[in-house]
């Protein structure tokens, strides 16, 4: 015996049958079904196994609160674990499997865990598995890990795509049930911009599940016409299949399931869209969740929430069973009994925990045997419910049934309001928590506000909609309220009578198998605060976040401690309301689009030339320009270095940060920001700068060009470009707003190339427009000019050298970059020019001992880097005071030196440590580390820059280079950091 499809009725399309499989078996359902309703209609009762004891489980609910009917949906890379069958729209070709069972759903060997239940009580693992210590990782934990977990992830990349989008409105209405529709209508008619989000594929909410009449028509029809009116208004947007799932300060997050009702998203459609919705006011009309009742073996397949039974009957045309009973502490059970009767099925018994029958249900009382002040004492059935034992008035009675509808009251869906941290308040009236205060403009309405009578819902929702509109200056006309038959299903809590013999079978949290005896144990062991109870027993941590569990457990703990429920406490719901796929939240920021790629003007050219690229922050920089003659990339770098040192090379330096500083106070500003005196740079010249952080450590160094008295250009290093600009902006805006100075970051606006080598002047001469001469006397090192090149292209030229050779940097608006690079190679051909990449540039700067990113790493000072002398002593600047702290000027600090291996072929690597020779390497003999290292083709030796304790005082000393993580170990000598042309004569020739 089991569920079946009624001959007619329901909001399904019987003309559109859909085929699907569950555990390999083929079934048919209809358009409009969920996976759960279609399986129930096919007589399937067993959907899954519980987490711990592997108890057989069916369907408890008809929505996102489902703890039991979890399946793996789809196959291959699209396989998704833990999908609630009750929330999956059926589509043709759907494939689902049961999970967390072995070897099969019907026969699950892991069910032996149930026999060990007395041992596997709450928190048992905290008390054992401790001996011997190493066995935890080796034995116990692997077993536990394999047993735990629900479904299986696909383990491979998700083939579907996702999008992110933004929306704005005056009033956001969450949920399109009677309350949401009424509130949206009122606000929209007043003229407010309204967004109405509905989780389901159709509007109506609870109206779809009940046989109500509104204005004389079946309620779903009223919902359709209300939606039609809304859809016709230009200021309304209705978003179906869209769940508002999290509230943040300033916005809501919503998930739109664009394609989940298809086997695969159609071309150019995302699977899901993640919305950020900014609303001035929000009406929370997300309904409520029914609570089950606590009684022994209350978890068998066939035992279902009363409202869910009705949803299956009325919306899907599915009866939960052939012989049904009802167990209720609310009027809801009576509604269900009435709908059963209308479907031609007479419940064998209605057990109400309350003392008197509700007056409005005289028709039910006449047709169904009623037991008042009754209780279900137990249930029977192997893989599904077959009988219940009922007590009333001292007698016990057994009923053979295959379905039991249970109702223990309703929890308003207040999660979104709780995300703001508002503490829920207990309502004695409905025995449930209501949203505490209206947080950040969120107003609950309808069942979410604890209002269950339809007439009342309409009146209050209309008032809420009008109030939200009015608060924004939209006057709402007095709403016309639909006429309805008044029904009400306020809840009450059924008492639980502790019984050690039975409590182990009263399931509170179905998915996690938390029972009443676990609550008793938690109480006994002192885990009495709600959070301790949750964490100790894992109550409410399952995939439905305790929607059906928390209140029952709370009530039990309140009873055990002799406190009221609000005294016992409440746990705050945490986002999201409905679990959110990580892919959806990430949206299209995936793969190559994770972070925008920054390419320089010659990216395509370099790529054609076969250059490999290196990631530098977001930039891609050409690393080498190999030619066929190069034996390997090391040879390429060596050749490129040699070209620059003997002839001329060109490289792309566009990634350097470029910050324009303009205004009458530009010099004053820079003098304060820099530790060097920028104002001393004359127009038409460049100067070296050092910037310190507030705390006195190095921030960056580089060059400043001054083109006019009120116009400087700061070249920050690639690595620090953003932080230097941010820092300068902060100084300008927050520290010295009174200065007449403006900043502009123009890094991407200019393509810039370094032309370096003894023959560079001739190449540059061939580029610049007449009559400018590029000679040692007319345009000596450190000159700067704005000029034109290549027949009128505006350009900036600086005679700067990073390589240690005579060199220039020429910049043009980025659009000219590729053309200029080609032109440089053309005119340079006569001089033997070759392009060089970042690797050769790095080698040359190490040869010159210039600090770069690995030396200026935020942990070093100007003193450490040997730059203390460059700092101006006679003015104030950022970092001056704190750089004088004693520990920052300790001679024993690790300070910059050069290192050369005693055997030039011994490879030095950055990251190796420098330790004393002659003693065992240890923390005590550790002197420092290598920050940069390279093979120097010029010196025919490996060389390195490094930081060594007291290093500059130990030039000439022999040390050991120790690199255990890469197996390196060799002897080296401490030398001065500049290996090549230490007096800097070459750029001047």
């Amino acid at each position, binding site marked *: 015996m089991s569920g079946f499809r009624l001959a007619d009725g329901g909001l399904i399309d019987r003309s559109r049958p859909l085929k699907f499989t569950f555990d390999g078996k083929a079934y048919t359902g209809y358009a409009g079904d969920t996976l759960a309703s279609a399986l129930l209609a096919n007589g399937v009762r067993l959907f899954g196994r519980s987490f711990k004891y592997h108890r057989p489980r069916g369907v408890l609910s008809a929505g996102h609160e489902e703890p039991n009917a979890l399946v793996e949906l789809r196959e291959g890379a699209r396989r*998704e*674990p833990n999908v609630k069958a009750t929330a999956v729209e059926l589509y043709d070709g759907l494939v689902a499997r049961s999970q967390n069972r072995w070897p099969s759903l019907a026969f699950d060997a892991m069910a032996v865990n149930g026999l060990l239940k*007395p*041992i596997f*009580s709450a928190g048992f*693992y*905290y*008390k*054992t*598995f*401790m001996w011997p210590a190493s066995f*935890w990782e080796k034995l116990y934990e692997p077993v536990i*890990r394999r047993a*735990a*977990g*629900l479904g*299986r*992830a696909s*383990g*491979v990349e998700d083939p579907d795509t*996702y999008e*992110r989008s933004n929306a704005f409105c005056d009033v956001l209405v969450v949920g399109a049930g009677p309350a949401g529709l009424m509130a949206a209508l009122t606000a929209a008619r007043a003229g407010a911009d309204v967004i109405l989000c509905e989780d389901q594929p159709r509007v109506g909410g609870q109206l779809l599940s009940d046989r109500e009449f509104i204005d004389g028509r079946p309620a779903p029809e009223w919902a359709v016409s209300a939606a039609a009116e809304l859809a016709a208004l230009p200021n309304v947007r209705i978003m179906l299949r869209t769940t508002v799932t999290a509230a943040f300060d300033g916005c809501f997050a919503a998930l739109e399931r664009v394609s989940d009702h298809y086997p695969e998203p159609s071309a150019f459609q995302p699977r899901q869209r*993640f919305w950020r919705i900014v609303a001035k006011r929000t009406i929370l009309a997300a309904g409520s969740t029914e609570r089950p009742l606590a009684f022994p073996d209350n978890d068998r397949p066939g035992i279902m929430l009363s409202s869910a039974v009705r949803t299956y009957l009325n919306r899907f045309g599915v009866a939960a069973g052939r012989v049904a009973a009802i167990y209720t502490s609310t009027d809801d059970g009576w509604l269900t009994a009435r709908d059963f009767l209308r479907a031609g099925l007479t419940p064998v018994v209605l057990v109400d925990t309350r003392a008197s029958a509700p007056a409005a249900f005289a028709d039910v009382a006449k047709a169904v045997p009623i037991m008042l002040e009754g209780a279900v004492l137990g249930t029977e059935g192997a893989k599904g419910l077959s009988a219940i034992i009922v007590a009333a008035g001292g007698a016990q009675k057994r009923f053979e049934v295959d379905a039991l509808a249970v109702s223990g009251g309703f929890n308003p869906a207040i999660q979104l309001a709780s995300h703001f941290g508002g503490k829920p308040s207990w309502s004695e009236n409905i025995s449930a928590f209501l949203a505490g205060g209206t947080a950040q403009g969120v107003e609950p309405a309808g069942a979410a506000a604890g209002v269950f009578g339809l007439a009342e819902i309409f009146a209050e929702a209309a008032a809420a909609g009008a109030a939200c509109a009015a608060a924004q200056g939209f006057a709402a006309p007095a709403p016309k309220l639909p006429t309805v038959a008044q029904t009400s299903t306020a809840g009450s809590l059924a008492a639980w009578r502790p019984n*050690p013999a039975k409590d182990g079978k009263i399931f509170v949290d179905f998915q996690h198998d938390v029972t009443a005896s676990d609550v008793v144990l938690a109480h006994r*062991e*002192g885990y009495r605060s709600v*959070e301790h109870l949750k964490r*100790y027993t894992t109550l409410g941590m399952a*995939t439905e*976040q305790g929607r059906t569990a928390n209140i029952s457990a709370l009530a039990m703990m309140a009873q055990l401690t002799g406190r009221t429920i609000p005294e016992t406490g409440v746990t705050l719901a*945490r*986002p*999201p309301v409905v*679990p959110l796929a*990580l*892919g959806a*939240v*990430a949206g299209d*920021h*995936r*793969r190559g689009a994770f*972070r925008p790629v920054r390419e320089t003007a010659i990216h395509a050219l370099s790529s054609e030339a076969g250059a490999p690229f*290196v*990631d530098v922050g977001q930039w891609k920089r050409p690393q080498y320009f190999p030619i066929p003659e190069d034996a390997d990339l090391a040879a390429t770098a060596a050749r490129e270095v040699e070209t620059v040192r003997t002839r001329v090379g060109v490289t792309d330096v566009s990634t350097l940060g470029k910050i324009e500083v303009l205004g009458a106070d530009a010099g004053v500003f820079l003098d304060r920001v820099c530790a060097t005196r920028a104002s001393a740079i004359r127009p038409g010249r460049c100067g070296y700068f050092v910037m310190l952080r507030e*705390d006195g*450590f190095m921030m960056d160094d580089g060059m400043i060009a001054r083109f006019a008295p009120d116009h400087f250009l700061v070249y920050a290093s690639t690595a620090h470009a953003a932080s230097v600009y941010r820092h300068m902006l902060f100084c300008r805006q927050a520290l010295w707003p009174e200065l007449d100075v403006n900043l502009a970051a123009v890094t991407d606006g200019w393509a810039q190339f370094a032309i370096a080598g003894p023959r560079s002047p001739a190449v540059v001469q061939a580029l610049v427009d007449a009559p400018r001469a590029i000679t040692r006397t007319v345009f000596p090192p450190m000159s700067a000019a704005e000029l034109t090149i290549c027949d009128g292209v505006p350009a900036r030229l600086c005679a700067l050298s990073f390589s240690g050779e005579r060199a220039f940097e020429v910049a043009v608006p980025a659009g000219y970059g590729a053309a200029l690079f080609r032109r440089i190679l053309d005119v340079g051909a006569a001089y033997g020019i070759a392009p060089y990449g970042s690797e050769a540039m790095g080698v040359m700067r190490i040869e010159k001992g210039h600090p770069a990113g690995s030396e200026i790493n*935020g942990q070093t000072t100007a003193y450490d880097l040997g730059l203390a002398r460059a700092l101006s002593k006679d003015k104030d600047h950022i970092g001056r005071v*704190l750089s004088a*702290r004693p*520990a920052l000027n300790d001679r024993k600090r690790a300070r910059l030196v050069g290192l050369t291996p005693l055997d030039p072929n011994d490879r030095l690597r*950055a*990251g*190796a*440590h420098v330790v004393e020779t002659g003693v065992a*390497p*240890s*923390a005590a003999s*550790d002197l420092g580390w290598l920050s940069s290292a390279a093979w120097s083709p010029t010196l025919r030796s490996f060389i390195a820059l490094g930081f060594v304790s007291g290093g500059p005082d130990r030039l000439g000393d022999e040390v050991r280079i120790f690199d*255990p*993580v890469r197996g390196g170990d060799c002897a080296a000598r401490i030398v001065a950091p500049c290996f090549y042309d230490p007096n800097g004569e070459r750029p001047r020739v």
Partner: protein
Amino acid sequence: MTFSGFQLLRNALNGGTGWTPHWRKAEPKPAYDVVIVGGGGHGLATAHYLAKDFGVNNVAVIEKGWIGSGNAGRNTTIIRSNYLLPGNIPFYELGMKLWEGLEQDLNYNAMVSQRGVLNLCHSDAQRDAFARRGNAMRLHGVDAELIDREAVRGMAPYLDFDNARFPIIGGLVQRRGGTARHDAVVWGYARAADKRGVDIIENCEATGLRSEGGKIVGVETTKGFVGANRVGLSVAGNSSRVAALADMRLPIETYALQAFVTESIKPLIDCVVTFGAGHFYISQSDKGSLVFGGDLDPFPSYAQRGSLHVFSDVAENAMAVMPMLGRLRILRSWGGVMDMSMDGSPIIDATPIEGLFFNGGWCYGGFKATPAAGFCFAHLIAKGEPHQAAAPFRLDRFATGRVIDEKGVGATPNLH
């Protein structure tokens, strides 16, 4: 009662009636030798070691809510000692050793799981920085391995090796690193401390720190005045607020950090993995949930919740390194408030008020420090002088310049 397999069996047979509260629900006595403010992991560990190793048993821990309600019960449970700087390595390694013997010490299974911590690197410069760190660890006798791309693939085949924006080139591994069950750490310390006579007083907030003539004499609480001439503050995210009760301003700012768990799935991710080209770290709990986190919310806040901006950013980072996560669902997210210090390193020190000691500034990394911080704080309180491993964590280091800045971002707390 001593927990054991035998006790478990015995109670299985008698319906669990033999179990007793893991710690007493104590009410404050008029005075103690030492009062610890803050019933997080650190406060409870401090009480445990005071009683066990330093012979100070007349101790109260006062907690404003339920124990573990702060960051101890909100963190992502990663434990490791893979630090770079000599000021840090010995301390975290002391912690690692204490973790390794914790269950036996506490007679409580805190599920210390040395599953390994794998830090991914994505550029030559980053690999070299990892080498520097790994070498520093080895010089301190701590395990570290630098592995290449293929070895990373062997450990974590599901990473994006093919289409990543920032290719994976290798990683730094500390095999002894891993995770521990955060709540169990709190409860285990509470139970062990309680057994040695420590009073754990919940729902008792410190509202004042009373001193006379520059010496501490006790704590005003919501349950009345509690006398003590040694008081230790261990209040993590509330450090600045509690220190203000004694008119102290700390070199600390407070920011929210979010954490996330997915629905429970069968074993997928074995070790702890951190992404090197963004900010993202992940592990899988014994229950099957993936536990992960990312960047701090960038603005100061005492609200224990995060912003959508960082929420999304964390998901982007996750997808950047593990695109197989796409269809897995975030079940819950939450925030904790972080006591971010000016150099990203903690403070365990005496204060200008005699008898008042401070432990804080743990940033997002104080869970792994729980045993070592407890031990060193107990040492400081009991002996009046710092334990050697915690000696660098001085309050005056910002004045002297002896800062311990692992990340090199300076006095910008939200960047550490």
